[in-house]
């Protein structure tokens, strides 16, 4: 029963052509066949085999050909466009003088036919037309809504489907198919408690409907899992926040100063700035880490303004010294260092003074911790250091430029 649309009230097609008119139609049809066979398209322009062939062709395709003739059309072609004969026939079928209820039924039958062919959009258009009619029959209206809900459901329009099913139930509160559809949609929309409510409504109509009972069970189960996952997520978020707060405390106890980032819209407190820095994850996954012995490891960026290059050190333990990292960074000459100016012992490390732009030189033997704690140092996001080659004209101009900027 699952996926059929309904045709609850006596359908209009079928029997009409029987009887005497049926015979007439037969004769007409024979005559048509004869005429068609002699149609220029199929007519024998040459003699012999060819004629037979053409006729065979026609006999093979006659069903298709006939379907193209408006009177015999089984359905309105999707590209009907301005075929005036089709329009004329439509006018007969959907006679405006017919009572609106009859028209609605006709549209419903059309919709059902489309639905059977899985042409859900066409079906929806047909049901739309049916619903536009002004008639009183609540049950028919409920069926139209339910069928449109089914079509919408198959198109994945779960929300529209739910709306249609809800509407259907308004017109016929005991319409099982609509109730089940609504519950089904709620499952798809992951609104499980709503699904259960719909199931309970359906169970009021039929207390032992297996499908509804199963749906309700599935909804209950899903609801439990979702709720549990939400709680789990909250717990994990809380634990993560607690971890971060520990890092924040560790940073605060070191009296390290944090500054605003350029893209900060409004002024933030130190606590907030630290928390932001701790919470932000570098695209590489690097972050400030507090190890078990209570020490911090920082991600650090080194800039080489001469070449517009940079290096990113994922883990710089606060108690390790700069020269050790320089050793690693310049063990191999950097590909951009064409002149061989950047070697562990030929470079100097600087940071920007917290007030102004002046560059402060860093002793390579100092630890990261001592530098970060320097009252002149300001962390903005990831700790940042500038590396310049010693005794080179670029370095001199660079240092001068920044010294005089303020």
């Amino acid at each position, binding site marked *: 029963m699952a996926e059929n649309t309904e045709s609850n009230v006596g359908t209009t097609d079928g029997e009409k052509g029987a009887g005497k008119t049926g015979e007439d139609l037969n004769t007409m049809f024979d005559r048509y066949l004869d005429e068609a066979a002699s149609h220029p398209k199929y007519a024998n322009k040459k003699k012999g085999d060819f004629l037979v062939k053409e006729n065979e062709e026609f006999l093979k395709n006659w069903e298709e050909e006939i379907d193209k003739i408006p009177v015999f059309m089984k359905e309105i072609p999707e590209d009907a466009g301005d075929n005036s004969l089709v329009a004329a026939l439509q006018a007969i079928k959907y006679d405006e003088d017919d009572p609106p209820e009859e028209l609605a039924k006709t549209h419903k039958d059309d919709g059902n036919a489309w639905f059977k062919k899985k042409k859900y959009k066409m079906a929806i258009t047909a049901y739309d037309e049916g619903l536009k009619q002004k008639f009183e029959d609540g049950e028919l209206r409920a069926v139209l809504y339910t069928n449109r809900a089914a079509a919408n459901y198959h198109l994945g329009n779960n929300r529209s489907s739910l709306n249609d099913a809800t509407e259907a139930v308004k017109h016929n509160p005991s319409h099982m198919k609509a109730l089940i559809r609504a519950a089904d949609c709620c499952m798809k929309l992951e609104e499980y408690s709503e699904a259960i409510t719909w199931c309970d409504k359906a169970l009021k109509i039929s207390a032992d409907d297996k499908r509804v009972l199963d749906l*309700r069970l599935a909804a209950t189960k899903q609801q439990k899992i979702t*709720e549990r996952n939400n*709680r789990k997520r909250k*717990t994990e978020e809380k634990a993560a926040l607690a971890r971060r707060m520990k890092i924040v405390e560790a940073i605060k106890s070191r009296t390290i100063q944090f500054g605003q980032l350029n893209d900060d819209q409004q002024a933030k407190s130190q606590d907030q700035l630290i928390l932001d820095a701790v919470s932000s994850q570098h695209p590489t996954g690097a972050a400030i880490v507090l190890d078990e012995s209570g020490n911090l490891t920082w991600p650090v960026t080194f800039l080489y303004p001469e070449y517009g290059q940079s290096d990113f050190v994922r883990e710089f333990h606060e108690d390790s010294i700069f020269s050790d990292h320089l050793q690693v960074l310049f063990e191999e000459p950097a590909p951009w260092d064409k002149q061989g100016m950047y070697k562990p012992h030929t470079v100097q490390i600087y940071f920007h003074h917290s007030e102004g732009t002046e560059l402060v030189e860093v002793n390579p033997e100092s630890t990261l911790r001592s530098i970060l704690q320097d009252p002149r140092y300001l962390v903005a996001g990831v700790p940042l250091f500038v590396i310049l080659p010693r005794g080179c004209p670029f370095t001199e101009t660079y240092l001068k430029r920044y010294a005089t900027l303020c």
Partner: protein
Amino acid sequence: MADPAVLDEFVDFLSVSARPDLKATAMQQVMGMTSSGDGTQLLLSHAKLLAALVDLTQDPNEKISADAYKSIINLAAEFESNEDENLNNLISNKKLLSVLLKTVVEKSSCNADNACKVLSNLTRIPFGCRNVMECLGETDFPVDLVKLVEAFCAKRYNEKGASLDYLGMVLSNLTQMPEGREFVLDKERCVVQRLLPYTQYEGSTVRRMGAVAALRNCCFETDYHDWLLSDAVDILPHLLLPLAGPEELSEEEMEGMPEDLQYLEEDKRREENSDIKKMLLEAVMKLCATKSGRKTVKDKQTYIIIREYHRWEEDPSLQQPIENLIQLLIMDEPEPGMENLNEVEVPENVVKALEQAQS
């Protein structure tokens, strides 16, 4: 006023058609009488007056009908024993029962809650239970147990704001009878499943109590244990959740635990009512009666929940029930033949020794 003859005259003022002012005064008098033991005995012994009182529950004046209900609630509350003949007059009053049941399910009734209270008092004793059950079972009677459960479980069922919380007590009383349990445990319908959420209902202790008691009663049906514990009902988490607290459990401890009990929030509060807690423990205990039931209960990490609950619980009267359950959860499986704890025969000398120890 203690003379039955005086009451005879009094009845006239209590008829629905009596003069409103006189009726109101007479009603006040009757209500006053129901607050004393002698008064209730006298009223209960007077069939005519009782009938008048039942009629007045349908009085168009809301004050009068409410007072009539309150009087009947008092009358029905007075009795604990099955023996009292006067009480039987009330319980056997078919008209009263049918009025009450219809009032409960009537959405627009102002007296639905009062009717629930009378019913809950009347069904406290087996005789009352039986009569109500009979009434519900009559084929042409418009109210049945389905309707009662539906009314109890629907949100804002009553349009006049009656909560129907006391209907839970009625259901718990009715499930003391096998027929009541059979209905609630109908596998082809969704009944017991609907009662489950109310073990956590914060809005009303009475409602919670009723639902828990009904579930506890159902746990006496050993044959249904496997079904109750299966996914189809999944009763266990609903019995344990009220006992579970906010304590953080390790992933390992939560492994196998029902989802409902995992990652409970830090503001999770436990049931406060000791009677309810006792019934919850009893229900879990019952589910441990059979081997397969015990296995499920154990596998779902019930021990962890009860362990934490034990640490938290301060009520001395609950210590023994908790420890009994823990004992059952951590003990080795009994030897073959002794696995169904309901069927184990206790040797006579042990029974005697136990009795002596108790006295």
